């Protein structure tokens, strides 16, 4: 067996051991069997797996406001998130390019960005609700805010550190603004921009669950809160895992895009 394969095998074994340990601890905490054991504490892995099976078998049913399939709820969340995320990304990239092209502008704007960055996007919620008078739009705006700063900061950094040579060539070739933007600046900064977009989609996905818990109606956040109100902890735990899985898939997707735009000179 080659050393590389040994290494891979070891990784798989460790991974399985970690999984087993996690399941055992969970089972112990959950207490006896976990089947319908509301009184005995949280449900164990088996009970959650059964719930997952049931929910995944029919993910898209719709029986009124308080009883929708889990897939449907995920769809609502993803659609809402994508709306805010895509708008934020366009704005963040444009502003980031402007900031990155002008060191003076960047220095001037940086203190404001630094103040905005650590604010939990949910802190904006009351203000958005008050101004928009619409919970759905307020949630989208929360996502917008949550996914703005990492992309903006990374784009500004990426554009600011484009090699002079590339800019010199575009000056020598007298490239028009659109061509300079799409053929030189964007591709040159693309790896940095993608890194920002990856962080942003993570924070957007984190924020959407919390935002939906507040606004209610639809979405996985609302689903979790609703199931908690029903004391259906099986569903809550399943939803937690599902949220994690979707987050991984989103990151994986952008990781693939990042590979496409990566370059080395």
């Amino acid at each position, binding site marked *: 067996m080659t050393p590389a394969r040994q290494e891979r095998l070891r990784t798989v074994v460790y991974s399985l051991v970690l999984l087993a340990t996690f399941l055992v601890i969970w089972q112990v905490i959950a207490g006896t069997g976990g089947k319908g054991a509301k009184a005995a504490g949280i449900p164990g892995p088996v009970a959650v797996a059964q719930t997952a099976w049931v929910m995944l078998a029919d993910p898209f049913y719709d029986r009124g406001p308080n009883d929708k399939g889990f897939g449907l709820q995920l769809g609502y969340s993803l659609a809402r998130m994508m709306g805010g995320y895509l708008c934020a990304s366009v704005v963040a990239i444009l502003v980031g390019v402007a900031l990155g092209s002008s060191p003076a502008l960047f220095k001037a704007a940086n203190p404001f960005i630094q103040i905005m960055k650590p604010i939990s996007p949910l802190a904006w919620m009351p203000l958005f609700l008050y101004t928009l008078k619409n919970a759905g739009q307020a949630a989208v705006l929360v996502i917008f805010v949550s996914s703005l700063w990492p992309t903006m900061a990374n784009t500004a950094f990426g554009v600011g550190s484009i090699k002079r*040579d590339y800019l*010199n060539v575009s000056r020598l*070739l*007298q490239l028009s603004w659109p061509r300079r933007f799409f*053929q030189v600046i964007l591709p*040159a900064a693309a790896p940095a921009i993608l890194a920002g977009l990856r962080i942003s989609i993570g924070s957007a996905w984190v924020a959407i669950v919390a935002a939906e818990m507040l606004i209610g109606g639809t979405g996985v956040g609302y689903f979790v809160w609703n199931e908690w109100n029903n004391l259906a902890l099986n569903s809550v735990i399943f939803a937690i895992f599902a949220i994690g899985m979707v987050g991984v898939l989103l990151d994986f997707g952008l990781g693939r895009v990042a590979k496409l735009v990566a370059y080395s*000179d």
Partner: protein
Amino acid sequence: MAFLELDHVTKYFPNPDGAGEVCVFRDVAFGVERGEFLTMVGHSGCGKSTILNIIAGLETASQGGAVLEGREIRGPGMDRMVVFQNFSLMPWMTVAQNVRLAVRSAYASWSRAQVEDCVRRYVEMVGLTGAENKRPAALSGGMKQRVGLARAFATEPKVLLLDEPFAQIDALTRGVIQEELVRMWTASRNTVFMVTHDVDEAILLSDRIALMTNGPEARLAEIVEVKLPRPRSRADIIDEPEYARLRSHIIHFLVERSRHLQEQALAAGALRAHELVSAR
């Protein structure tokens, strides 16, 4: 007035130690005739690349300026194109895309077919047919600079600026590409200004060679004419007595006189500063 004229150009850089400015070179004046190949030779730090960048319009002179066809150079333009020492290809673009970017800039009115035809012709001219869809990272240094040459020649500039174009290429490949450059230049008869510290390269390619003293306070010391018949090849010129004479003249200059002349210039500069102070 020559086709390309450097009119008493002086360049100051901020002093790296902090206060004040350093004069890199002073009062550099020479002309390049249409279709001429002029090379500037000097040690690192004499400002020869800065002179090239001033002609390219990427940098500005502190005093004096460059004049092309009677017009002062105020910035980059499609009438001048640079081949860079570090190639400066766009790494996210393929060979064809890099050349196409330049062709489309030079000939905005061309149809897609015309552009593609031009790209194909220049890629073929530098022997990269088959590698059109490779990115620079997949190419050797020699192949990268072939792309650089194709990109520059494809725009058919009035003045071609070569900034130590073969310095980062291994010695064996360098010879091959130099001869390719001779061939391309013979066909196109562009006006060329090249900067190098490779004496053999300068003699092989140039009509005249401008010798710079050492920087700071570098001066243009003299311009020597290369009276070797064209077309030249490395194998032919190496046995010419003129080649040996030129080579030893330039190397003597670089080893001894360039420093000696700099010391004179620095002493004169110090004297001038002294006079200025005492005049006050």
